[in-house]
């Protein structure tokens, strides 16, 4: 930790010496950042299961997921009766980074977006040794986004594989076999066929929110084994893989094959429901739409693996995802690890979250576990989904998820880069920029405003 070396006395000098002299005198005392220290490494708890004892504070987001975790934590308590868990719903995005910097009253563990973890590794426990036994059994993608300089900082939680959501009835009547959609070129061809049959359709969904469109881009890039930066943080936007994606988008737009709408906002929902959209290449969490938002087309959607960019290429990429972190200043890090080990790697733990529960009677079907033994196609945790015509989404998702290639940690400035890359993607989708312009403009600005200022 590198909070300023500010003791109570130093503070009093700084605050109560109102005169300029006194203030100058205390400047040295409250300089931000000291010398960088080695991150702390968390070792395996020495105590045996039954002896684990103490209290931990765990942060989660509010909402339904909170209730699901609450129930899962109850299962943990049954296994570790002497560990008291103080489970809190907080505004993690607004609080966690600040709390880590200040180092006071930090939780013993927290849920966090994978995109945030790499930038704050210094404030987190190095969990490499603890995760070692499970490493070979964990999605390589999830491991890679949680690994900075060879050390693992997050307990990999959900995997969010991209899938191709499609209207089964429309493909059927247009004579398109979903199994034939092996590449993105096949998808364009199918979209043309659908449109010839019904000129009203704009079959392919393109995302209008800059943030989500960039997240979607990373799914398509991740599918090809690349991402915005390499492991050393060097930008690799100017590449064949990204150019391939942008050119594909340009083709789809030119042929008028796209519905450009913001994710599940009213305009999007309406055009999904009135049959204009036929293909939605999106993460598994889109399953929420047919289950809760769509009315007219509920039951008509199905999921397939994404097409591949090159014949035989990976059939999925990850879009979003979270992990669990243990702050370096946690009071009971060992106990927090026991909880996360239970949730992520032990059957009663992950079953309690993904399996049928009070909040989701059919199970939680908006992501899948990243722990491979938990993601067994033959042993579904969540049930076939009626809103998808009874399709076994589990099988489709875990098989697609297993093909997701490893990536690199997500740079700390990822969300900021949306102002450049995400916006330029929107220009591409509106036909105002060419693929080469998107690449050169975005790369130049990201380099100057973000990477060079790291």
């Amino acid at each position, binding site marked *: 930790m*590198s909070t*300023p070396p500010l003791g109570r006395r130093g*503070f009093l000098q*700084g*605050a*109560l010496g*109102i005169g300029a002299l006194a*203030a100058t005198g*205390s*400047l040295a005392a*409250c*300089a*931000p*950042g*000291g*010398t*960088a220290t080695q991150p702390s490494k968390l070792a395996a708890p020495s105590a045996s299961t039954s002896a684990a004892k103490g209290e931990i504070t765990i942060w989660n987001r509010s909402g339904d997921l909170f209730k699901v975790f609450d129930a899962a934590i109850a299962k943990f308590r049954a296994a570790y009766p002497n560990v008291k868990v103080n489970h809190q719903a907080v505004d993690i*995005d607004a609080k966690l*980074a600040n709390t*880590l*910097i200040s180092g006071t009253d930090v939780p013993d563990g927290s849920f966090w977006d994978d995109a945030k973890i790499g*930038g*704050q*590794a*210094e*404030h987190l426990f190095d969990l490499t040794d603890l995760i070692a036994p499970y490493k070979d059994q964990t999605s390589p993608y999830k491991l890679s986004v949680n690994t900075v300089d060879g050390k693992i900082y997050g307990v990999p939680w959900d995997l969010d594989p991209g899938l191709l959501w499609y209207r089964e009835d429309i493909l059927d009547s247009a004579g398109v076999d979903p199994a034939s959609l092996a590449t993105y070129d096949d998808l364009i061809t199918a979209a043309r066929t659908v449109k010839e049959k019904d000129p009203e359709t704009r079959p392919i969904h393109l995302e*209008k*929110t*800059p*943030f989500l469109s960039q997240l979607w881009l990373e799914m398509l890039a991740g599918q090809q084994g690349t991402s915005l930066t390499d492991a050393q943080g060097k930008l690799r936007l100017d590449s064949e893989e990204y150019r391939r994606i942008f050119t594909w988008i340009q083709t789809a737009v030119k042929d008028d094959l796209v519905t450009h709408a913001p994710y599940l*906002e*009213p*305009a999007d929902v*309406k055009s999904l429901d009135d049959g204009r959209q036929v293909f939605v290449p999106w993460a598994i969490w889109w399953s929420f739409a047919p289950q809760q938002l769509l009315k007219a087309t509920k039951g008509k959607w199905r999921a397939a693996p994404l097409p591949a960019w090159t014949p035989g290429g990976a059939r999925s990429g990850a879009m979003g995802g979270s992990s669990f972190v243990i702050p370096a200043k946690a009071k009971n890090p060992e106990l927090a690890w026991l909880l996360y080990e239970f949730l992520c790697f032990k059957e009663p733990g992950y079953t309690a979250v993904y399996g049928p529960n009070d909040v989701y009677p059919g199970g939680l079907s908006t992501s899948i576990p990243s722990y491979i033994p938990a993601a067994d196609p033959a042993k579904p945790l969540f049930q076939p989904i009626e809103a998808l015509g009874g399709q076994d989404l589990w099988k489709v998702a875990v098989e697609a998820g297993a093909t997701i290639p490893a990536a690199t940690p997500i740079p*700390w*400035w990822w*969300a*900021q880069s949306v*102002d450049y890359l995400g*916006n330029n993607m*929107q*220009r591409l989708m509106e036909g105002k920029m060419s693929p080469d312009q998107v690449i050169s403009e975005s790369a130049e600005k990201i380099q100057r*405003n973000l990477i060079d*200022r*790291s």
Partner: protein
Amino acid sequence: MRSTRLSPYLFIAPFFVVFAAFGIYPLIYALQLSFMRWRGAGAARWVGVDNYLYLLTSPDFWASLGNSAVMWVLIVPLQVVAGLGGAVLLANARLRLRGFFRVAFIAPFVTPLVAMAQVWIVVFDQDYGLINYLLNLAGLPDVAWLTSTTWSKPTLALLFLWKTTGFAIIILLAGLQAVPGGVYEAAALDGASRARQFWSITVPLVRRSMAFLVVIQTLAVFQMFAEPYVVTQGGPYGSTTTAGLYLYNHITASDLGTGAANSFLLVLLVFGLSLVSVRLLRPKDEVS
């Protein structure tokens, strides 16, 4: 004016005690940060005026100031006029349903912004929002309220106006109370028209409150970040990335040095603007 030795210091002491305890340390700390590169983790590096230079040469920084300046033009003059009109009307004892109108105009001020910003997203939705529905009824075409760079600023300005005009009315009502009724009666006897009365009596007398309002709302407009953050995330194409949101983005990215430098540049700017508006609106007979 009278100078008395100790009393004024005693009277202002409580503020400065609180300021000394909770203001000076953060202030000095932030000032130092503005000369450093520090992302909340690792060692901070002294970079001199680099953060300031970066901002002053960054098109994004100037664009954010430009966006705020446009918002200022859309908001402040209109709010002063509307606030004054509202205050005069609501103070009028012969207005029927006065209680109802008072509640209507001041109520938005009591609502929580995060919830009400959602309303804006829905009501101004291009395809399914209420506003375009009404426009269509009147035979007018759809407007891309939140998704075009032309309309995004006016739409956000409306949210700000809606939310804070109640505040302006309260400030100006308090200013109006200083206008004695007798002055109007005398003016009416002199045969001055109502418009004349308004311009020659009301406006000069509430000048002080107007100056105050302009300064406070200038600060608020240049520091505004929650409205664009919730409604447009600064888009489309950065058209609603206000000075406050641009600053906020540095801080959420834990780019604390740049964020601090940005803050101090904003302070300078806002201070200059406040001086100008105070001077322009100063009552003619006043010196201090």
